[in-house]
């Protein structure tokens, strides 16, 4: 078995994020996903939007500078993740296809075994 990180990318300007009714619907979808794939899910969280993010990177002199916002500004921002366990990539992709990500999509990355 291998572990995969499923990163959920969504457009933060999408109404999903501002409208409480649709937000609740999305939570229900995640709940349904959790019930369907509970045996494979090893973890996961939803993240606050990127306006709450802070990035740190070294400048030319190696000094750490702190900036407001996401590390990379993109239309679709990382909004949450799951850690899943699967026999192989095909199984992982089948599970990841069920991850709710309205107004966006997901990226599946194999986790290095420790």
């Amino acid at each position, binding site marked *: 078995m291998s572990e995969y990180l499923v990163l959920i990318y969504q457009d933060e300007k999408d109404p999903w994020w501002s409208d409480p009714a649709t937000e609740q619907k999305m939570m229900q979808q995640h709940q349904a996903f959790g019930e369907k794939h509970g045996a494979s899910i090893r973890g996961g969280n939803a993240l606050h939007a990127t306006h709450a993010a802070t990035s740190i990177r070294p400048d030319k002199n190696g000094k750490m500078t702190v900036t407001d916002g996401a590390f990379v500004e993109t239309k679709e921002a990382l909004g949450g993740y799951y850690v899943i366990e699967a*026999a192989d990539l*095909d199984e992982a992709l089948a599970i990841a296809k069920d991850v709710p990500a309205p107004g966006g999509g997901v990226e599946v990355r*194999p986790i290095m075994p420790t």
Partner: protein
Amino acid sequence: MEFAVAEAHRNEWAFVLAATVRVTRDIDRAEECVQEAYARALADWKRHGVPLRPGAWLTTVSRRIAIDSQRRHETQGRVLPLLISQVDERESSSTETEAISDDRLRLIFTCCHPSLNFESQVALTLRYVCGLTTPEVARAFLVKESTMAARLTRAKKKITLAHIPYQVPSAEELPERIDAVLDVVHLVFTTGHTAPSGESLVRDDLTQRALQLARMLRDLLPEDLTVAGLLALIILSDARRNARIAEDGSIILLSDQDRTKWDRQSINEGLVLVGESLARRPPARFSLMAAIAAVHAQAPSYSDTDWREIVSIYDSLLLTWPSPVVALNRAVALGFADGPAVGLAALDELAGNATLANYPYYSSARAEFLRRLGRLAEARTAYVHALQITENEVERAFLKKQLDRYFKEFSPRT
């Protein structure tokens, strides 16, 4: 003896590799085992003679090397004597043809996995399913050997790290996954059929590899009508091979080909497959392309071709595959059915399409229709434009010939 081993390398390498990958689940390690098996063949065959079925011998030895190395790996660090080095019966009996076919099918689905980019899929398939060497794959796609080696390494790494499985997809996923495999095989064929640039228009090595792949898929998935369609398309196109290229290497257009040079036996085989593949509803893209090739194959001459039938097949094709190149071909067929004025009008409707603007066939098709309508100055401009954007030397030569033939008085400065 070296000859027998070299021969077995050319013919059997890919089969032996596919069977070994099933044990190692890792292409790199399988490659090492296969190499070791060939090294042992060199020594063993010298002493005992070439075995009756060299491929089966190599497969058994290579898989045994793989199994042994895995056992050694597993027992490493444990103070256990190595009691068994025998291959268990179930494993060694899988040198049966059927198991080998299954191994190859598994491997091609791995190489054409949708999580790999298309370039990598093509490279992996040629290298590991067809058994081309890395320099050969590099040459086929006109990239540097080091570039191709890096591409293959990256792709293999992804297979290992992401655990892309060695398995035939589930029935539910099969249609989509088959399409990806067929796209790869089709690209190999078209790359060989019309080399995008360079001296030779046709690269028989690639067309033959594509034909072998399509036949293999047909054998392994006899129920799949999209596979039948692609095989039909390749067979029917390849049947014209001997009539396509003149002795000086220049291209002979379909309209000028000596149809007695067409391979009738292949055409008959292709026609049966087309009929079968069109039973699918809706017909697959490659089946419709094969149906067009079938109309040409049955026509006694270019002028006696059923162009209306071809136009109507292109109409169906546009529904499943709305691409500018299909629209271009439909416009050309329409021109043959209803005359150059109608054809030119259909082509001009496609003017402004960004894909076609840099597509030499668009300009050369316009040039032909303009010439036949007597609009010679415009025809010449279109020929010259086609010539400027064609990279294939043989097609360039053809366009130059057309210019010389019809526009001697103002021959181009090229």
